[in-house]
């Protein structure tokens, strides 16, 4: 099975991982991952809760030390000082200052990248919070604060944006808007890695990494996922692949495809 699906020829991948292991105490959180993430596209990181998505994302942004293996980001080892301007990371729970206004939060994180007042305003507009810019973040709803957190990453115009479950708690309209925003960013050359446990979001990605129990189950496109999971419903397709990997009988012939 081809692991590096639909890689555009001649473009160096934004992220290359080889033999990535992460152990915490005796728990083996990531158990040997090899993959690449194509530049200028949206890659979805999908998997059940506890499968190691967040740890993998932290390894890519350089916040997690590897037990073995290597991650190369934009041609440099993950976490290298030179990457700190280029990699944006949005954690799952909003990491912003609740006692600051939306604007002050974005301005502060922007200051780390020499962002201007215009950059700040642009990032706030990008997440649709212009009208709330002067509000204290603590007074916002959960979905609004996670958008503040996103704006704090957008303000630096990162080349690689790593987003941990960015659409949790957002209403369908906002979620659609956000995916449109991601698509626009990808079209202008930004690489996005987006984790989610909602499979329907997979269709917005140009390629997918399926993670399960610290192992990479597959690296494929949404279309291939549908094909291999024998369902146009990506949720069903994913469940099918998981059952297959667990060796449980499934509705369809499980010899048909091999997991990566």
């Amino acid at each position, binding site marked *: 099975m081809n692991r590096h699906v639909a890689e555009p020829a001649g473009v160096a991948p934004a992220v290359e991982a080889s033999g990535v292991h992460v152990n915490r105490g005796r728990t083996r959180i990531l158990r040997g991952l090899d993959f690449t993430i194509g530049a200028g596209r949206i890659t979805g990181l999908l998997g059940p809760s506890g499968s190691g998505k967040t740890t993998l994302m932290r390894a890519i942004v350089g*916040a997690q030390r590897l037990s073995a293996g290597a991650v190369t980001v934009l041609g440099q080892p993950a976490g290298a000082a030179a990457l700190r301007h280029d*990699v944006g990371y949005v954690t799952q729970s909003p*990491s912003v200052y609740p006692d600051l206004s939306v604007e002050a939060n974005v301005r502060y994180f922007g200051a780390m990248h020499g962002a201007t007042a215009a950059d700040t305003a642009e990032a706030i507009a990008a997440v649709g919070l212009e009208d709330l810019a002067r509000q204290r973040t603590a007074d916002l709803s959960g979905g609004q604060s996670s958008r503040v957190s996103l704006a704090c990453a957008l303000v630096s115009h990162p080349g690689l944006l790593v987003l941990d479950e960015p659409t949790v708690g957002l209403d369908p309209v906002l979620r659609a808007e956000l995916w449109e925003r991601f698509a626009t960013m990808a079209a202008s050359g930004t690489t996005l890695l987006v984790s989610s446990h909602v499979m329907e979001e997979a269709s917005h990605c140009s390629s997918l990494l399926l993670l399960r129990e610290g192992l990479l189950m597959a690296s494929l496109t949404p279309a291939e996922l549908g094909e291999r999971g024998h369902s146009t419903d990506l949720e069903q397709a994913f469940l099918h692949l998981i059952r297959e990997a667990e060796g449980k009988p499934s509705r369809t012939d499980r010899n048909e495809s091999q997991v990566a």
Partner: protein
Amino acid sequence: MNPRMMLATSRRVLEQLRHDRRSIALILVVPALLLTAVYYLYENETLPPGMPRTFDRVGLMMLAIFPFVVMFLVTSITMLRERTTGTLERLLTTPIHKADLLFGYAIAFSIMAALQSLVATAVAYWIFDLDIKGSPGYVVMIAVINAVLGVALGLLCSAFARTEFQAVQFMPVVVVPQILLCGLFVPRERMNDVLESISNVLPLTFSVDALKEIAANSEATQLLWDDAATIGVIVLVVLVLASLTLRRQTR
């Protein structure tokens, strides 16, 4: 070090504080109120002629102790929040240097401390006629250095607390012994050898010595500058230790 990031951090910390009017009021007013209490506590003491008032001794030392205690508490809680809400981890994925973050904090809180000790010193000096030979400007200087010491120790201690409850418990461990042994209650030369030698290495001791120098001399003495420099060195060492607790990577 990057001045832009450092000043952005100071500004952010002050902005956070600005939204918390009650804390600002407590920081500015409480030391002055406590000083008032101390004044009236010793109001009716009978002194042999030529003996300085107890208020002149105790009140003066309190001017240095307040900023130390308050900034220790404020900093350890603020920094702990930064660690637990994920903003610290996020900041450390940006180009900010750890020193920018720590000194940004130190600058912000020393501005608050300067305001605090200006209020307290003004009250002591003008309302209660604090009788010292030296300039009250030096008293404010020592108060600010002490505040930075509180900030530095708070930053360091926050690394060893997981919750705000634990952070507050560091006060009896770190702050109270220094207050007990700094010479406020018993002159240091009358302590037993063990306590005196502990007292000799505690940072607050140097502040109290410096204040005694200010009280006894109309001009700044070499001893005053030596004490101030010693606290400065201790602050730098503690800040370096604190920066070692800031990790860009976790295992």
